């Protein structure tokens, strides 16, 4: 069974088709770099995969189940453009909240473990509104990994991260990959993404222009894919 199956997905905003007949199968354990220029449809596709938006046509299944089922969402970790954390709550309170929403057995303990893993244990009781941007991003990464999801969906995960946060995220992604988790991430940071990726999907104007195994040629020459499959 595929970790992710996208079949004939279209998404219209008014009359404008943001996604056109997207079809993609992702095997468990793959790390897929979702590439494309600004406005290509990467975020729209990730939101549909995450169940945050409904496709106009077509469907998405994660491990064979509809993404809007509660049981399916328990297996997904999402990190979007926003950090999805409450400024008025402390780091511990935010993570404990999400641990409870995901039905984890020991929310407080899990929150503390992740605060330590992301280097935020000293500010565990500090309000998020007082955090630096890098600290907020690390906390958001902890939130996405908190429930040990099978499928990780990241939208521009390296954007606006400081060096420490990038190191934390790369370490966690590598660890998740080693443990057989499926990762789909959209990014403009080609070098970082292609080093981690096992597969690549290039979206052009709402359509899949290329999908396949990531080759060493792509890593060595990050512009190769765009030159060969992206229109000028």
């Amino acid at each position: 069974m595929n970790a992710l199956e996208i079949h004939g997905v279209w998404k219209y905003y008014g009359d404008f088709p943001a996604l056109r007949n997207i079809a993609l199968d992702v095997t468990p354990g793959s790390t897929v770099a979702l590439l494309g220029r600004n406005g290509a449809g990467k975020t729209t596709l990730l939101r549909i995969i995450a169940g945050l938006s409904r496709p106009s046509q077509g469907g998405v299944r994660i491990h064979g189940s509809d993404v809007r089922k509660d049981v399916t969402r328990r297996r997904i970790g999402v990190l979007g453009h926003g950090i999805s954390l409450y400024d008025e709550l402390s780091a511990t309170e935010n993570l404990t909240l999400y641990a409870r929403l995901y039905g984890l057995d020991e929310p407080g303990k899990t929150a503390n473990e992740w605060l330590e893993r992301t280097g935020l244990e000293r500010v565990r009781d500090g309000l998020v509104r007082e955090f630096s941007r890098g600290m907020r991003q690390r906390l958001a990464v902890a939130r996405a990994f908190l429930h040990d999801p099978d499928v990780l969906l990241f939208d521009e995960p390296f954007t606006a991260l400081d060096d420490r946060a990038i190191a934390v995220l790369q370490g966690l992604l590598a660890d998740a990959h080693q443990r057989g988790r499926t990762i789909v991430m959209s990014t403009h940071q080609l070098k970082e993404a292609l080093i981690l990726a096992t597969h690549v999907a290039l979206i052009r104007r709402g359509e899949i222009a290329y999908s396949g195994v990531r080759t060493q040629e792509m890593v060595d020459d990050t512009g190769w894919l765009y030159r060969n499959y992206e229109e000028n």
Partner: protein
Amino acid sequence: MPASEQRAEHSAQQSTAAFRAEPAAGITLTQFTQLIWTIAAKDLRSELRTKEAINASVAFSIVILVLFSFAFDPSSEQLQEFSGGLLWLVFSFAGALVLNRSFARETQNDCLDGLLASPAPASALFLGKSLANFVLLIVVEFVSLPVFALFYNLHWSGQFWPLVLVMLLGTWALTMIGTVFSALTVNLRLRELMLPTLVYPLMIPALMSAMTLTTDFLSGIPLGPDNMIWVRLLVAFDFIFTAVSIAVIDSVLVG
């Protein structure tokens, strides 16, 4: 074998290892209740720290009650006839300030996406937020009530418990409709205007009931066969709009 193919093969080998037991489907009533409380506690804690909605709502309510008291003669008998209407208009307008903040709070940092991506059912999220709104509205109303009695020379203590019953039922109606439309208008630029525009017309049956019953109780008329029909209407309204809101909330939140 090229490194990329080795990685791809490695991924394929991991496929079996990656497949973990599927989590148990569905949640128990206890878990559902805990989720509702988790969301309500989060909203109440946030509100207690910022006091954005509650301060604005209480201040607005008291200012309007004081200003109206200058317009009407507190000793007139006519005042009792429209006291219920006046009180519920103030509750409704002050309530809009609380309800507007309900889902607007979730737009900061895209928190709504975090909630919707979680396995918590949309109905639990909705009921949790409704519970928090209900508590905040009740606080506003119980702060406003003594001010109302003081400035309008009304004696509500004789029918206190029936009045509390009407306040609970009427506030639940306002909360249900207000929370669902707060979710619907959360991404609109003119949501502060749109929310009252959508909510008040739908609230007419509930407001009529609450106003009539409140006027009766403030006039010393007890709960009896004559005004029981309004209680029944209020209860039916609450049940219907709670059920409808729960049924549609997933479609409202996931566009």
